[in-house]
């Protein structure tokens, strides 16, 4: 709402009004008053996201269970150029842009201010922070070491930057480029890994899926597959080690081959039992005299529909007739490896082995020692306890997934959500005709280090053919006791959903604008939206920076929101997940009570009694409050046994105990 308080914009609006015909009134830059609180648990119908008027800065908007705090346009030098991902430090949001990056002071989220607009073109300018350092990704062919905007025309050039730029932001208004690390495939995205056991260094995992540079431009870059040259730049990620005291010495420390021997299961991974069964099947087939062949990573029994015509052709080649002889079979057996090699020719880009050559993005969760790798046709679970040597512990593929894009863990680390950026983000994949399982999220339970599929979640509102829309970046919102996240869907807007019940994710809030253009595909939409210290910050590709606040609703109580606001982060890189912890508060205890009321985990009479006791305790202080809380905790602890939601009752009990101990 901040805009309207700015005199200059008031003047602008007035000027606009004077210039406009009455029938064609302009829409002010800020227009959404705080909506009335809606406590219903039924989504609005018809969906107000359908049929919104198009426009760049005057598109119609629809919001449900959240309100817009501010809409800020890009600084001049970045207007018209793609905004990309976000990182946060202190009171600042750092927003990548294909022309560089913008630092916004969001101390007042209703009125963000540009602190720095740093011109240094690169795509995609994925950003991360750690202490006084800022990391920026460069992938495209135009990035220059000198931050110039003229591009690099020559296919081989010493002026090109593809990799990671490092800035010292001790003075955030005057960033200094203190180092660059060049990589063979550039950096599409990167992930900062702060190892809890290493305070001297920080690690950066680089994901780059673009073409491999010529060794003349960057020595050591090998485009041949690993089977031809073990130094291949394919089938690996890069790990950069950054000494915090000497960031200029940052360098690639390892190139882990996390894809080695990765063979896709058709859907959710081979169990040891499956593998044993395959071996038995092969042995039995060989015993029966059937043909087997090794291709794409393992030995398989060949269908007689493959081998019969081949045997026939061998018979014909010796001018024979009738059934093939033992000699014919032997001839085929010896020729098979060659025949299969022509069916599956090794190529520079796919290599002879199946599986991804790179990850699109990796989300690390250091507190649980795991990372989720979204890697072309796979979702990987990596053990990252040794940052220099991440080890793959599980992999999933999914027939409905096109391009594994990013990963988000729930706070407990018992689930992981992967998104599918079907169509690369520039295509309209949320039309009414597009399947709900395509371009969606897939949710997996993590059980004994393996991933078990639970469900898909896709933006429920159909978008037009002129709105690029697909699952994109998001983060958890620290609602205690629940898995709630906010996610960007490009021109599909942002969607807040609850995936506590992993088999039944449900949308609980949203915001959307009409298309940028009503006549053709335009460039816009939310690239990413993340929770940061009480607000939702969205990087709008063309429109700038949007900040939202969740409203209490039938899905989310004021107490739950208050409890979420007790969580404060010093910094946040969405691809480096922190574990949320909630300091003891009355809001936290009340949030659990609200959840028990919703789940009917306690009878209404108990809910009312606990609320009354909490109110009583809060009105007291010192020893009186402690005694009241301790008594309440003892009663609640006794409620657990008879509750259908015993786990939540125990969380309430623990919250009361911590509150009493304050």
């Amino acid at each position, binding site marked *: 709402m901040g805009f309207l308080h700015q005199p200059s*914009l008031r*003047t602008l609006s007035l000027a*606009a009004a004077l*210039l*406009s*015909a009455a029938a*064609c009134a*302009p829409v002010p830059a800020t227009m959404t008053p705080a909506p009335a609180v809606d406590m219903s648990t039924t989504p609005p119908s018809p969906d107000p996201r359908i049929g919104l008027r*198009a426009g760049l*800065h005057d598109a119609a908007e629809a919001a449900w269970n959240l309100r817009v705090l501010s809409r800020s*346009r890009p*600084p*001049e030098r970045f*207007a*018209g*150029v*793609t905004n990309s991902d976000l990182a946060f430090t202190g009171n600042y949001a750092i927003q990548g842009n294909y*022309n560089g990056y913008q630092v916004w002071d969001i101390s007042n989220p209703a009125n963000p201010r*540009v602190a720095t607009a740093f011109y240094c073109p690169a*795509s995609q300018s994925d950003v991360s922070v750690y202490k006084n350092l800022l990391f920026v990704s460069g*992938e495209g*062919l*135009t990035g220059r070491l000198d931050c110039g905007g*003229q*591009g690099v*025309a*020559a*296919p081989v050039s010493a002026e090109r930057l593809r990799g990671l730029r490092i800035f010292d932001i001790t003075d955030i208004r005057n960033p200094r480029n203190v180092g660059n690390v060049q990589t063979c495939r550039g950096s599409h995205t990167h992930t900062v890994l702060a190892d809890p056991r290493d305070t001297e260094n920080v690690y950066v995992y680089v994901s780059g899926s*673009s*073409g491999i540079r010529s060794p003349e431009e960057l020595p050591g870059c090998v485009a041949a597959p690993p089977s031809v040259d073990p130094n291949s730049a394919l089938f690996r990620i890069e790990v950069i080690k950054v000494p915090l005291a000497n960031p200029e010495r940052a360098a690639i420390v390892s190139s882990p081959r996390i894809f080695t021997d990765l063979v*896709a299961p058709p859907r959710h991974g081979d169990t040891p039992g499956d593998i044993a069964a395959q071996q038995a099947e092969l042995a039995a087939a060989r015993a029966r005299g059937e043909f087997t*062949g090794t*291709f*794409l990573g393992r030995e398989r029994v060949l*269908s*007689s*529909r493959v081998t019969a015509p081949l045997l026939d052709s061998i018979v014909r080649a010796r001018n024979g007739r009738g059934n093939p002889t033992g000699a014919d079979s032997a001839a085929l057996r010896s020729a098979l490896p060659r025949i299969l090699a022509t*069916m*599956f020719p090794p*190529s520079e*880009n*796919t290599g002879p082995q199946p599986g991804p050559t790179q990850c*699109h993005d990796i989300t690390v969760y250091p507190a649980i020692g795991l990372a989720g790798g979204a890697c*072309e*046709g796979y979702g990987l679970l990596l053990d990252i306890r040794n940052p220099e040597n991440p080890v793959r512990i599980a992999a999933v593929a999914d*027939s409905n997934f*096109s*391009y594994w894009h990013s990963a988000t863990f729930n706070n407990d680390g018992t689930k992981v959500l992967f998104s599918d950026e079907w*169509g*690369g*983000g*520039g*295509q309209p*994949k949320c039309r009414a005709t597009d399947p709900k399982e395509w371009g969606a999220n897939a949710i997996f339970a993590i059980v004994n280090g393996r991933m078990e599929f639970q469900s898909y979640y896709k933006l429920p509102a159909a978008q037009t053919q002129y709105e690029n829309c697909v699952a994109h970046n998001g983060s958890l919102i620290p609602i205690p006791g629940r898995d709630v996240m906010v996610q960007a869907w490009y021109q599909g807007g942002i969607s807040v959903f609850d995936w506590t019940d992993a088999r039944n994710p449900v949308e609980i809030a949203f915001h959307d604008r009409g298309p*940028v253009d009503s*006549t*053709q*595909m*335009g*460039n816009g939409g939310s690239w990413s939206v993340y929770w940061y210290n009480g607000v939702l910050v969205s990087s709008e590709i063309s429109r700038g920076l949007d900040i939202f606040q969740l409203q209490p609703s039938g899905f989310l109580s004021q107490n739950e929101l208050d409890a979420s606001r007790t969580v404060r982060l010093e910094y946040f890189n969405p691809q480096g997940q922190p574990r949320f912890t909630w300091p003891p508060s009355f809001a936290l205890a009340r949030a659990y009570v609200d959840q028990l009321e919703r789940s009917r985990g306690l009878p209404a009479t108990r809910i009312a009694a606990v609320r009354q006791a909490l109110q009583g305790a809060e009105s007291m202080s010192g020893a009186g409050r402690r005694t009241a809380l301790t008594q309440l905790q003892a009663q609640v602890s006794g409620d657990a046994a008879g509750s259908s939601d015993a786990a939540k009752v125990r969380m309430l009990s623990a919250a009361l105990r911590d509150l009493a101990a304050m």
Partner: protein
Amino acid sequence: MTFRITMVAGALLLAATGGCSGSPRATAPVEPVRTGPVHAQGQAAAILRARADSARLPYTAADIRFMTHMIPHHAQALEMAKLVPSHGASATVRTLAGRILSGQQDEIATMQQWLRDRQQPVPDAAAGGLHAGHGAGQEHTMMPGMLTHEQMTRLDAARGWDFDRLFLTFMIQHHRGAVGMVDELFSTHGAAQDETIFKFASDVQVDQRTEIARMERMLADVLAAPDSP
């Protein structure tokens, strides 16, 4: 990600002229520029467009060639995918083909719009496929990986298991051609400096590389499939 810088300016102009039938540009909404000086509307749109133009690096003949040639290449993939429902394909091949159909159709629209925005001739997407090399009035260079007329005819004649095998074999060949076209573009002097081209070509490459790996696995399953009764 595929981006259209020009569209921001285009949308702005449309916002300034469209949706308000018959009104001259001078009565359209103001474009407030938060951090800059106040401009009269129309002028602001022009400034934003000029800025977008100057931010965009020049595209080259190689870029135009790439976009122009990839349209018939994609069009043939659509022709192939359209055979799937009537040729007894398996469920997994039908799913794959559905995604190829949707994906490449949308990408053709992107390429056509890119060419149109730059006043370049826009190839007709209907000119690929079965009649590649036989049509009239279009350029008929066979792009890398494209099926010959004979291969297309073989595919059209196959049914069931045979169709699956040929479809996957030919689509892998077809995709490899597209991946190679991107490699060639990226190693051409001055090419892919335009942000839209770089992102689009990169998307085509990673999507098709991922799909090649998926199809290789599917083909392996087809070749190892037990005989149907």
